[in-house]
């Protein structure tokens, strides 16, 4: 365990009634890391985020934040820890109280954790924070409905960042925004990421995750099926579900973009996409035109043993029905939960 481990999640399980949503998740996060958590609907990623923050009560497991188990500590201790652990939600407008001005919303964490601050000092901090997220400090008297989606998301980020948290969880923060605005918010996050602040970036948008994260966790039906450094995950995914996810992302024929000659004074556009023509999907697709994951994330009988992905996996073996593969390290820092991981790594892959 590294000395700068910020968060340790051990065997976390969350169930809603009889329905198990998070089924035993283990991972660690270090200071300064940006970790992506990808998965589709039903994967349990949002539930996982809320469980980490103890916004709901998990059935089992531990969440150690700077050594203190958040799930077992007293409410007072938990609340004290909250200043270091913040979250930004998916729906920018819904996460802001419609009856409070944005200034009051951003100031609320200050009122809770720094009650000794004078009103003037508080106003100053709020104004500074608004400027840091790219808004004018004069808008603090306005109400959320007066802002656009991207602006609301900036306000949400301002609220989360005002106490300089050590860990920021971003739950699908750009999913409801226009494409041209997504980049603004992501870049803002990169700018605000103070030295040492870790980010858990939850998203179903693999492309955004790819450019943002150091490490990626892939979640399917309540379990982590693959953990890898970002480059390794996209270059050589091991788990069939990860491969299916990557194959399913629709391609855009990325030509050499006819870059507009930059206006004088503007820096040359960063991020020129790669060479022209179609780019091959990593990994091999069986038949042209056939996607790798037929069927749906159906309501699987999760009490049954075996791998949760077996019904949709083109490479399933009989052993997959009976034995749930554990998450094993298949390469340095690269973990996968599949009985056939070694075959993938060796470049062999035969459909069963």
């Amino acid at each position, binding site marked *: 365990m590294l000395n700068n481990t910020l968060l340790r999640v051990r065997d976390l399980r969350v169930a809603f009634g009889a329905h198990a949503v998070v089924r035993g998740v283990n991972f660690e996060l270090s200071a300064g890391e940006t970790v992506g958590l990808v998965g589709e609907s039903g994967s349990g990623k949002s539930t996982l985020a809320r469980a980490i923050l103890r916004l709901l009560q998990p059935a089992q497991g531990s969440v150690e934040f700077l050594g203190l188990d958040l799930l077992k500590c007293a409410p007072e201790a938990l609340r004290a820890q909250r200043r270091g652990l913040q979250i930004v*939600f998916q729906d920018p407008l*819904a996460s802001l109280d*419609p009856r409070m001005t944005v200034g009051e919303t951003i100031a609320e964490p200050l009122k*809770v954790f720094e009650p000794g601050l004078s009103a003037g000092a508080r106003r100053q901090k709020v104004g500074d924070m608004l400027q840091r997220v790219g808004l004018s400090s004069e808008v603090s008297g306005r109400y959320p*409905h007066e802002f656009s989606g991207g602006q609301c998301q900036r306000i949400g980020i301002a609220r989360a960042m005002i106490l300089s948290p050590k860990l920021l969880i971003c739950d699908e923060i750009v999913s409801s925004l226009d494409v041209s605005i997504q980049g603004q918010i992501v870049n803002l996050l990169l700018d605000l990421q103070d030295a040492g602040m870790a980010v858990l970036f939850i998203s179903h948008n693999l492309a955004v995750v790819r450019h943002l994260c150091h490490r990626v966790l892939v979640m399917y039906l309540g379990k982590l099926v693959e953990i890898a450094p970002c480059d390794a995950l996209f270059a050589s995914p091991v788990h069939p579900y990860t491969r299916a996810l990557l194959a399913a992302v629709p391609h855009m024929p990325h030509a050499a973009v006819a870059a507009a000659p930059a206006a004088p004074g503007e820096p040359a556009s960063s991020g020129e996409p790669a060479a022209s023509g179609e780019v091959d999907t990593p990994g091999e697709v069986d038949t042209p035109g056939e996607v790798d994951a037929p069927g749906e994330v159906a309501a699987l009988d999760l009490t049954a043993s075996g791998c949760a992905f077996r019904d949709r996996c083109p490479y399933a073996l009989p052993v997959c029905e009976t034995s749930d593969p554990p998450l094993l390290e298949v390469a340095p820092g690269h973990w996968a939960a599949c009985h056939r991981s070694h075959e993938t790594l060796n470049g062999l892959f035969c459909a069963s």
Partner: protein
Amino acid sequence: MAGSARETLRVGGLADAAVRRLRSNPAAVVAVAALCAIVVLTWLGPWLSPNNSQTLDWLHIAARPGMQSSHWFGTDRLGRDLFVRTLAGTRVSIAIGLAASVISLLVGVSYGAIAGYIGGRTDHLMMRLIEILSGLPLIFFVIFLTVIFGRTEYLLFFAIGAVGWLTMARIVRGQTLSIRQREFIEAAIASGSSTGRIIVRHVVPNVIGPVIVYATLTVPQIILFESFLSFLGLGIQEPGASLGTLIAEGAAEMEAAPWILLVPGSVLALLLLSLNIFGDGLRDALDVKDG
């Protein structure tokens, strides 16, 4: 969401928008005007008339309404001026209606918000209590208490208060349950706000819209209930008057001197109608979802 052509781009607080919308609703404006007129009249009216509500004018027993005598609305069986008496009665009814509404608002909102937000076993117990209280046959309860404590106005307050807050609590609890799942509440929890702070600063301001509307609609209900109790003889006693007692007297004289019933009856009807129209207008104005 952003840029939807159907969003009304409002500037300023939601209260300002509500007032604006209310002003553009003609029925509500008329209702508010009528209410103001009634209230002003009940307080100033007695000054306008030379009579007072207690004097028995033996010369004009059960006199018809008219402009000739000083009794513009006529007199009742005992010769008391109906104009002043009705205004006095209206004053009492409005006062009771407002006071009871405010009490039921305060008690009901606190009770409902706490039950709805905390949930679980606490909510369960609190709701069962409400159900038990709702189940009590209220009229019999009031009669029972009258037998024990005699007829006082405090009993009236108590009975009305006992009724008013129950439904308010239920409504607030329902509203709180739907608010509780919204993301900004989660955000407030994640920011470290305590339960009390969340209830006061986040839950109550967001449920207050429907609550205020319901409160304005309970005022007429309470006035009606008070009138009913007084009509039964369980409320305001002589020589005091409320619209209910006046109507009771008028009902007895209905055939011979119908105005004794019609005057307080019309005032009551106008009052209730205006309150209801105002309440409806308020609900439309505070409805955040635009068409």
